């Protein structure tokens, strides 16, 4: 069968990114032709400002060299504009007179600088700032001439002015607004910026309107303002805005309103023609930043690559100015408005200003100047629409700064780090390695960085810092994690969507789920398979069959793999209580199997280390104890203190309560590990404050705490409620855990689930709705009733194939 012909008009970042997304899915699907009027491969337009400033070279910013096109069998028609689209014959005509036929056409023609229609705009020396050619002209002008005027004090204008100033020109910025960057900053921050730029020697004319450009012999010599003032100029850079390049589409009769009108599938009014990038008008918005372009490219790339019907619904953008030494950041509705609260810190003398806009207890806008170290964090809160109840009082001071949380370090601090500073402690990745990879490989997202360098790919605690390094390296082209994050490379669906589909469509096997949701791989990957397996068995207990091949080794062999590929065996000791007979038995087993170490775990039980895989089944038989699931994403232990049976301070039988809880939740699989503790008095010797569910006995009953965590980042559990009886402790704890089991994403600890949905939500489902609480508790009991002891379940006839080796 003949391949479909895909023609791309526009050899820029949005179009080429779309092709890359298509090729990721299907390299063979299309015969691709790219028509571009610039004479080189796709380059990183955003880095033109650093080139102008002399901080980077042209070759550093090429994203796709000519070899890339050749390698992928793409025909590149470069240095040649498309002149006409013939929709009837489905052909694109080029300036060279060629007619190129298409089955699908993608328009990604970008935008051009808006040139003020004032007298003299046609003079030599009047340019926009858009491409390599413009940049080269500015560099040449800076070498030959003295006076430059930049019209427009927006991001691009200021970056141009800064670059020209660094190249030794005398630069004046003419800006119509009352303060600089009035589309990105409020007045206070704008004034701070103005002061800082003035100190760098830029001349700023605010609230100033250009009347005429004056010239001699066809070349510009000055700019006259409406006030009558004449500013000398050998070079005038117009940076007052961009205009989508929609003429080709308009001339072809495609619907255009400012930009090319596209729907959420990025389709134009002609079903064979799509458009992405700065040339489009999506839901009335045309974008001029890179993050939305890439999101569009992903949506369209998936669709044209034959993978699903994801929709593009718009992008929340953030801003950062690429002027070295000036830190500003803004995102969302930074100006505030009706029903908005503002939280402001203003220290003009110290050059620091922060303004956060809050509506309905959610962050909707941020404007930072001088200290932008928390910008990424605010942006994350904004996009997640996270409830601020627990953060509000401290919001202005950045994320909670806990020991060991590298992620809270700021972009400015990241920028100040030396190249040999270790960013990712797990994989030993230094800042220098990261920056090199980001620049050389053209990385824009934390996920890309993870994939190429492994930084942040292990424990993830350095993700924040990786994000900061990324931000300080690429400036406003920084694309933080998208609001919707797909589960893994095998699908574009989010964890939430997958959970929902499994429930709604009653999917009970991995194969059916992958089929129904158009998985891109035949059998998933180490990320999605364990997650899907959990979603299936937790949604359809008794019905969905646990698939051992979808589990990582620990949960497949029900022991904990060690660095030498031996295993550790942890039997359950209810509530941390054992007996002389049990200890003797454990000692005998340890002797018989030459256990290398017997260790008391943090969860009050014994760990037998250094066991060979083939010995596991016999060891379990000899132990004749329940599996402790010390390896599981599921219930680990219930830690207890001695309680009132012996302790002189004890108010309740904490040990008995702990045993009852452990028995009630035994064999429970969960999105991540679950640890409980019960303390007999507020001295809290069982450390219940850092457990997923922590119980503290008081004289009048039991206090229940949830969402604590003693792991990578220590999190103190939140007070949930107080109950009177042991039955209530079981019911309330069980309901909270079942809610977590049903709604959390795989590998999301209780604290992160709680952070996502809010403590109030959990309270509304468990405390305020008694019927729902009882239903949750009943569902958990039902799910656990059919769950076998993992070790016993392994001792069947097929154990040999799983635990013994073959020989030659």
């Amino acid at each position: 069968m003949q391949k479909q012909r895909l023609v791309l008009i526009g050899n820029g970042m949005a179009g080429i990114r779309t092709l890359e997304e298509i090729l990721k899915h299907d390299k063979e699907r299309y015969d691709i032709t790219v028509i571009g009027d610039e004479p080189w491969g796709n380059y990183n337009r955003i880095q033109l400002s650093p080139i102008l400033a002399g901080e980077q070279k042209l070759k550093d910013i090429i994203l796709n060299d000519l070899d890339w096109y050749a390698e992928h069998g793409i025909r590149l028609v470069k240095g040649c504009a498309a002149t006409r689209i013939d929709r009837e014959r489905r052909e694109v005509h080029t300036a060279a007179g060629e007619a190129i036929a298409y089955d699908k056409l993608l328009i990604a023609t970008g935008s051009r600088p808006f040139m003020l229609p004032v007298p003299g705009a046609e003079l030599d020396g009047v340019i926009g700032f858009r491409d390599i050619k413009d940049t080269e002209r500015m560099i040449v002008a800076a070498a030959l001439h003295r006076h430059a005027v930049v019209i427009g004090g927006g991001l691009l204008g200021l970056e141009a002015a800064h670059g020209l100033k660094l190249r030794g020109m005398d630069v004046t910025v003419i800006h119509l607004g009352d303060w600089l960057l009035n589309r990105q900053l409020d007045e206070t921050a704008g004034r701070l910026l103005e002061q800082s730029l003035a100190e760098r020697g830029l001349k700023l004319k605010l609230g100033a309107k250009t009347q005429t450009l004056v010239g001699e012999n066809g070349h510009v010599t000055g700019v006259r303002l409406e006030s009558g003032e004449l500013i000398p100029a050998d070079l005038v850079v117009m940076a007052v805005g961009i205009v989508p390049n929609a003429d080709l589409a308009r001339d072809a009769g495609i619907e255009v309103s400012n930009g090319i009108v596209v729907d959420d599938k990025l389709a134009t009014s002609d079903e064979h023609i799509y458009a992405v990038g700065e040339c489009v008008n999506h839901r009335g918005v045309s974008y001029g930043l890179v993050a939305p372009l890439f999101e569009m490219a992903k949506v369209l790339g998936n669709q044209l690559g034959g993978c699903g019907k994801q929709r593009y619904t718009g992008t929340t953008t953030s801003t950062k100015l690429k002027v070295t030494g000036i830190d500003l950041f803004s995102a969302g509705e930074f100006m505030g408005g009706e029903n908005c609260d503002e939280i402001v810190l203003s220290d003009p003398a110290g050059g620091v200003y922060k303004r956060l806009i809050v509506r309905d207890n959610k962050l909707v806008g941020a404007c930072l100047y001088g200290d932008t170290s928390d910008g990424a964090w605010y942006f994350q809160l904004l996009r997640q629409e996270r409830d601020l109840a627990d953060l509000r009082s401290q919001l202005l001071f950045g994320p909670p700064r806990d020991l060991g949380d590298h992620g809270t370090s700021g972009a400015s601090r990241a920028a100040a780090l030396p190249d040999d500073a270790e960013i990712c402690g797990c994989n030993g990745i230094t800042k220098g390695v990261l920056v090199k990879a980001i620049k050389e490989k053209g990385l824009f997202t934390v996920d890309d960085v993870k994939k190429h360098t492994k930084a942040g790919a292990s424990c993830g605690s350095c993700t924040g810092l990786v994000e900061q390094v990324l931000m300080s390296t690429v400036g406003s082209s920084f694309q933080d994690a998208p609001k919707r994050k797909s589960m893994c490379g095998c699908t574009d669906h989010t964890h939430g969507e997958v959970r929902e589909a499994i429930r709604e469509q009653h999917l009970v096997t991995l194969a059916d789920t992958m089929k129904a949701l158009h998985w891109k791989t035949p059998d998933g990957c180490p990320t999605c398979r364990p997650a899907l397996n959990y979603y299936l068995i937790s949604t359809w207990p008794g019905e969905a069959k646990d698939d051992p091949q979808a589990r990582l080794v620990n949960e497949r062999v029900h022991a904990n793999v060690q660095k030498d590929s031996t295993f550790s065996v942890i039997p359950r000791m209810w509530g941390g209580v054992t007996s002389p007979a049990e200890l003797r038995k454990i000692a005998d087993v340890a002797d018989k199997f030459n256990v290398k170490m017997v260790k008391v775990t943090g969860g009050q039980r014994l760990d037998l280390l250094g066991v060979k895989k083939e010995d596991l089944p016999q060891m379990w038989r000899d132990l004749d104890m329940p599996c402790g699931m010390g390896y599981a994403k599921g219930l680990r232990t219930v830690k207890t203190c001695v309680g009132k049976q012996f302790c002189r301070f004890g108010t309740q039988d904490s040990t008995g309560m702990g045993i009852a809880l452990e028995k009630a939740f035994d064999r429970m699989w969960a999105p991540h590990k679950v640890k409980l503790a019960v303390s007999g008095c507020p001295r809290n010797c069982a450390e219940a404050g850092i457990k997923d569910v922590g119980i503290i006995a008081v004289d009048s009953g039991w206090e229940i705490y949830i969402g604590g965590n003693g792991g990578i980042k220590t999190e103190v559990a939140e007070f949930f409620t107080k109950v009177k009886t042991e039955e209530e402790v079981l019911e309330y704890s069980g309901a909270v855990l079942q809610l977590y089991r049903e709604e959390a994403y795989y590998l999301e600890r209780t604290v992160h689930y709680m952070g996502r949905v809010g403590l109030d939500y959990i309270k509304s489902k468990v405390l305020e709705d008694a019927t729902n609480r009882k239903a949750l508790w009943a569902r958990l009991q039902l799910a656990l009733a059919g769950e076998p002891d993992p070790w016993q379940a392994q001792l069947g006839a097929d154990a040999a194939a799983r635990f013994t080796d073959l020989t030659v």
Partner: protein
Amino acid sequence: MSADKNQWQSICKLDDIPAQGARVVKREGKTDIALFRTLDNRVFALDDHCPHKGGALSHGLVYGDTVACPLHNFKISLQTGQAQAPDEGHTPCHKVELRDDTVWLAVD
């Protein structure tokens, strides 16, 4: 036999290896070999040793024609033994064939 120093030996039935799983073949005085069976019943044989920290690849999760090492998630191609970028390293591969439902391995 030919000059090929490898001897083909029948090792086990296909069903002795779990689908999307692995089975270890012990060798006297040599590195163990891991036999892998993919979802579509292709069989591969690699040293049971991750080039990174020596993890047993037979304990890994098998997907497509790749296995992820259980220790640090290095992804090793079953076809070539090559680690997937950005990781580096190579695990030796062995010749293996499926004849009817019997797995044959070329051992030296």
